[in-house]
């Protein structure tokens, strides 16, 4: 795990007051709070316990903050359990030029030892099937069976599961975008 990005989680305290990015939305009232839990899994099926995960997203109305760090988060997989958790609000539908819309999604950037260049992917939500069907990114996938690797699955009210697989039959779709 990268000590300079999550020093507290790597066991280093005393340089900064706290790790950056642990709080994605200062005012949770801006939208329905959700938690997304998951793991990062290597080609042998083992959990990667030294991954740093950053996320960037719109607010509940589909607007990106352009003045602050609101909407950005940074966490890592747990050194013991391999689990990560993203506590945030559910993003909204984003309008783009030309009248298109992007289904609610969170941009994800993953780095770890052995990942030579950071990997981008997106978290979409399995319970937004109508919006997902109209999403221009999801529709670009030539193998539509891989869409499920981009869907966070609801587990309980406000709780989703999103595992990132680096290799294998269910390899996550990564984006060069």
């Amino acid at each position, binding site marked *: 795990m990268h000590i300079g*990005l999550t020093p507290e989680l790597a066991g280093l305290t005393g340089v*900064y007051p706290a790790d950056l990015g642990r709080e994605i939305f200062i005012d949770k009232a801006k939208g329905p709070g959700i938690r997304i839990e998951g793991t990062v899994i290597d080609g042998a099926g083992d959990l990667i316990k030294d991954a740093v995960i950053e996320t960037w997203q719109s607010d509940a109305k589909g607007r990106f903050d352009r003045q602050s760090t*609101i909407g950005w988060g940074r966490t890592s997989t747990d050194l013991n359990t391999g689990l990560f958790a993203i506590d945030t609000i559910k993003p909204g539908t984003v309008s783009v030029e030309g009248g298109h819309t992007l289904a609610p999604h969170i941009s994800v950037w993953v780095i770890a030892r052995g990942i030579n260049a*950071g990997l*981008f992917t997106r978290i979409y939500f399995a319970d937004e099937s109508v919006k997902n069907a109209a999403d221009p990114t999801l529709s670009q996938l030539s193998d539509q069976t891989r869409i499920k690797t981009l869907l966070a699955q609801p587990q309980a009210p406000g709780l989703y599961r999103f595992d990132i697989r680096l290799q294998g039959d269910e*390899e996550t779709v990564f984006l060069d*975008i």
Partner: protein
Amino acid sequence: MRLFPRNSAIHPKAHHPPYKSSTLRAPSHRPLQLPSTPTEETGPVFGHDILGPLDADLTRNFGATDAVALGPQIIVHGRVQDETGRPVPNALIEIWQANAAGRYRHRNDEYTAPLDPNFGGCGRTITDPGGVYSFRTIKPSPYPWPNGPNSWRPAHIHFSLFGSAFGQRLITQMYFEGDPLIPLCPIVSAISDERAVDQLTAPLDLDATQPMDALAYRFDIVLRGRTQIQFENRRDGL
């Protein structure tokens, strides 16, 4: 503002067997190439309020007040620009490194070299309106790592950068001019373009040296470009 397509030729290969950890961690599919959207064209904006007064001075930002880290003092400075040559102001740069003996202050570092009670090993700063940044630190030592039977990393400093868009997010490593370990390192050789490796190798910058105090190294960084032009063609195809 659109983002230029990434130039995959200058970035490290994901799958590079000499670097053992990459073999199980490199995706086997090529990433899906798409034009950027507002999600990648925007990004977090960091204010100077997050910076402490010693954040950019790794020789003094950890340990006892008034104590200084052990090792040769150096200045590492440069300019952040994008592919169009425009400076990138207000970019958060975070760095981390081993100490002068090659040891990280990390709970997983098992190297037997000593910790320095006055060296934490990380720092950060924000580029000025001209994209310029500067750190004071100590020169890190090379260190051994469990890749092959006798693998040593060249001395390096890890760099993380935010531009003005999340799609410009970058993590990289800076090396020091003249280090004989650079061409032997399998992490370096994941980059096949020699010029790209040269870009990561900071030359001694005698003009910026502080006499009787600190040597200086110059490390300029180029982030992915932004433009008004909408890209129709994808550089690598799908």
